[in-house]
């Protein structure tokens, strides 16, 4: 077993400095389209029309982005004259409630419960990464807990498939107050490309009250960290 200890020590510290310093390693985020001013309303309409999920819309020359619907397909920036500009970054989490309502219920550690409501695997893979050495949520006092009875935060990914409605309701009901629900990814936020349909809802807010939404398909690990920091009152709410 000693060889494993040595290997761990040899690998050194990989962990990001976020939130104390900004993380700028390449490849940590796919980026996303940013609101843009076009030359004319026709160009703006043409660019917005390329979006298959209706995340882009134009008002005159201005193209707006509804990040809740964006699935990073990249079609708005591909080999066209008027390509959308994309921004980097990862602080994507946003509150669904007024800042007063979210008043710091938690200021120290958080216990997190994860629920898969029909996620494709990419969101879950990013959630898995937050406990790995690169992101290591433990240093921030965040822990994944196996039971809803001791959970403060419920992280839910997926559009909410019908058979997962009951498990989600029960899981939420089993959590003690105060509690927070975080919708992870475009599917959980808006139904994404799957809902609403005969098999899935238009996001988890149709079943449980959502406090924080993280758009993205999938949101990168740092966006998840951003949301958790927001719950813990350690970052300003956007």
């Amino acid at each position, binding site marked *: 077993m000693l060889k494993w200890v040595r290997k761990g020590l040899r690998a050194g510290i990989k962990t990001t400095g976020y939130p104390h310093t900004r993380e700028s390693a390449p490849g940590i985020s796919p980026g996303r389209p940013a609101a843009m001013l076009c030359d004319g309303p026709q160009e703006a309409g043409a660019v917005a029309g390329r979006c298959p999920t209706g995340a882009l819309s134009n008002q005159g020359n201005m193209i707006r982005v509804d990040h809740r619907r964006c699935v990073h397909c990249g079609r708005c920036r591909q080999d066209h004259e008027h390509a959308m500009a994309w921004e980097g970054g990862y602080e994507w989490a946003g509150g669904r409630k007024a800042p007063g309502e979210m008043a710091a219920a938690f200021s120290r550690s958080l216990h997190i419960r994860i629920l898969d409501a029909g996620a494709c*695997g990419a969101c879950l893979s990013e959630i898995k990464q937050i406990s790995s050495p690169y992101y290591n949520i433990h240093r921030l006092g965040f822990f994944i807990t196996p039971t809803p009875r001791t959970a403060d935060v419920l992280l839910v990914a997926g559009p909410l498939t019908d058979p997962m409605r009951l498990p989600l309701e029960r899981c939420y009901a089993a959590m003690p107050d105060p509690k927070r629900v975080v919708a992870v990814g475009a599917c959980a936020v808006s139904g994404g490309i799957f809902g609403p349909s005969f098999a899935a809802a238009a996001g988890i807010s149709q079943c449980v009250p959502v406090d924080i939404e993280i758009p993205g398909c999938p949101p990168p690990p740092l966006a998840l960290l951003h949301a958790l920091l927001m719950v813990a009152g350690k970052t300003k709410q956007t």
Partner: protein
Amino acid sequence: MGPTLNNVLKFTDLPRMVASRWGDSLEIKIDQERQLIQITCDPEVLQDLCQWLFYRQGYSLATLIAEEAPPEWVMRYILYGDTGNGQVHVLTRFPLSRTKVPSISPAIHAADWQEREIEDLFGLSFEGHPKLGDFILHEDWPEGASPMRTAFDASRLHPRQESGPPWRPEMIVKTPGAFMMPVGPVYSDTAESAHFLLETVGEDVVRTIPKFFYKYRGVEKIAEGMPADHALLLAERFSGSSAFAHSLAFCQALEAICKIQAPPRARALRVLLAEMERLRHHTAAVAGICSSTALAVAASQTSIIEEDLLRLTCRLAGHRYFFGLNTPGGLARDLPDGECKKASEAAWIVLDKLKELHEMLRFTSSFLDRLEEVGSVSRKKAVAYGLVGPVARASGVSRDLRVAQPYAGYGQQTKFQVPREAEGDGYARLRVLFAEAEQSVNLIHQVASTLPAGPVRTAAAPTEGCALGWAEAPRGAAFHWLRTDGSGNIRRYRVMPPSFVNWHGFHLAAEEFAFQDFPIIMATFGLSNAECDR
């Protein structure tokens, strides 16, 4: 890796052999270019014919497709052979009013779950199938409503019915103390939603009864009527951990319908990207196995490699999970030669790290104790269940679509081996993962150093037609069958992912082993419920 003389003889001989056996009850069409034999037969000879192809001629079952084509049903059974043996599509037709189909699963067990799926979603009943009933749709789904029928409205939630207590199977162990242990659908970590009933006497798991499709999003149904471009988003995102392989299979089906081929540069880049996805998937699978055995340092170190690969992918392809790259006719954008070379160099470094890790794991006895001779699947069972991918290759079945049915840039230009192990236990599956990761790095290097110049996209005009697309996804063979109408919209979409096939055989590995081995066996199978449930 071209077809050998024997194989060529077999493919061209097959129609004659079929005709001499079943004579007038069928009609045979041969498509030399696509290496495809289409046999239309009476429902009565279906089982015989499929059994003969499967067991006597060594064809594997790709998928079953039910299609509503008024005034009749068309059932399509797709089988594929080894290198040079092409595909056989067996078709049978009967009037829409008829709801009974002869089952082939008494002869070919690999068709078992596929027939159950069609029964549940189309309302067709398979005569001779031993176990039909709730499968994809759970107890609260009203009887008689068949979501895959064309008339069904898929746009809104279907009213559910009151359901009694959940179904419980009859217990086969009658000794005192025997009990049925429910596991899932919600787990304690990031595991996907799925439910198992484990019949146990306290230590050994006697029987594993899975209840899946908690994540059924009805992808095949909601794709209907969509423009192909939009349905591509579904193909890419129903299983995010193998997005590139599935979007590739989908695009290749469309390309076959439009009778176009992606340019050589796109075909080469598709190999590079598909192998990078395999490398990342296998790394993640190894991390999963390490963490299932509570080997924390190994799990952490492997997940560092996984994140390195995710970042590498993002730098190269613009997305950590390859979303938005495949497009009908090629790739959505070109990747610079320099970046591909850099990626290939980074892949070598990853391989060195994986090799070091493998070497350390090989000499960690507490780890090996949990894997060796645990969760074994025999070769015979693997063939009968039609298992695919690394799971099948660890049980001595070396079929790999990259070799058996070459696509994209696989074939003559690229050289690689298909690793195979004989034991069929958890350790064999781990060794196959490591060996395949090494082959993937070799392939990435080969492609990156011989990238042809030129465009990466051929224009595709919407056409009416149907075709099969396939790819060897990280978890095994993936098939996407499409029918489009004149304006290029999807009329019928069928996906057969490797996880669906391998979950069917999972109980073989989990039964007769100790309770605490269950999560480890699950990890060595490395399957995805999102991919299975669709």
